[in-house]
């Protein structure tokens, strides 16, 4: 199954995990403490986020810490920026059209 960042952020628990570790790197146990769901369920969410490269691991002593992978998050923003430019272009054309029509009417 192909995993991508959109799937990853489609789930509310995963979005919450991303928000949590955006502030500071956390161990799986620290993350799980913030949720009602089982440690196993949270661990599965962490695994998906890791597979999507939205978060990365760092070993500190015997503990694994997860941190946010900012570059990957930017991928989504890149798409949104392109979408924004399409609409800007579209609306600029509408500006021109409106101004042409108004001139003709005079």
């Amino acid at each position, binding site marked *: 199954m192909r995993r991508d960042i959109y799937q990853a952020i489609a789930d509310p628990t995963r979005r919450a995990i991303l928000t949590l570790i955006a502030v500071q790197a956390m161990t799986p146990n620290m993350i799980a403490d913030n949720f009602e769901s089982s440690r196993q369920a949270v661990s599965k969410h962490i695994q998906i986020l890791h597979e999507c490269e939205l978060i990365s691991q760092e070993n500190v002593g015997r503990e694994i810490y997860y941190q946010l992978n900012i570059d990957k998050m930017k991928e*989504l923003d890149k*798409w949104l920026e392109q*979408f924004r430019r*399409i*609409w*800007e272009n579209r609306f600029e054309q509408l500006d021109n059209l*409106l101004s042409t029509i108004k001139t003709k009417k005079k």
Partner: protein
Amino acid sequence: MKHNLINDFAVDKANNTITITREFAAELPLVWDAFTKSELLDQWWAPKPWKAKTKSQSFTEGGQWLYAMTGPEGEEHWSFANYQTIHNHDYYTAKDGFCDSNGTINKDMPQSDWHMSFKSNGETTTVTTQLKFQSLNQLEMTIQMGFKEGYSAASDNLVVLLEEWKK
């Protein structure tokens, strides 16, 4: 007055909704016509170098706008907007998606809900476009399908293209 920028582009990633607010330097009835009459839509709806070409339009509740985005190499991507609710000179809603030239919906491709509202400021008009996708993944597909030639071209090409369109 400078009017060539989007005043607000808000992305709600949790609700897969994008809201675009834009002011236009024309009175409301004309702006309304530009958004709802196909002979005007054809002149601005497609981002350069694409052109929109309407096959049929019925701007009524339950009616449809069937059109193609045609590319410089003669490529055609067919799209539809099914109008749901229309309050004249106030707002309209529609469901939008991709289809073939007969209007047969391509169910594998994303669909989105539009809510377009119009507010008069006297000589100018503010239009708020709200687009709701089933997921933001679909947004990526929408961009690829609507404005990029095929799926193979690298997204970097699109960035270059978009830069050119901006000029």
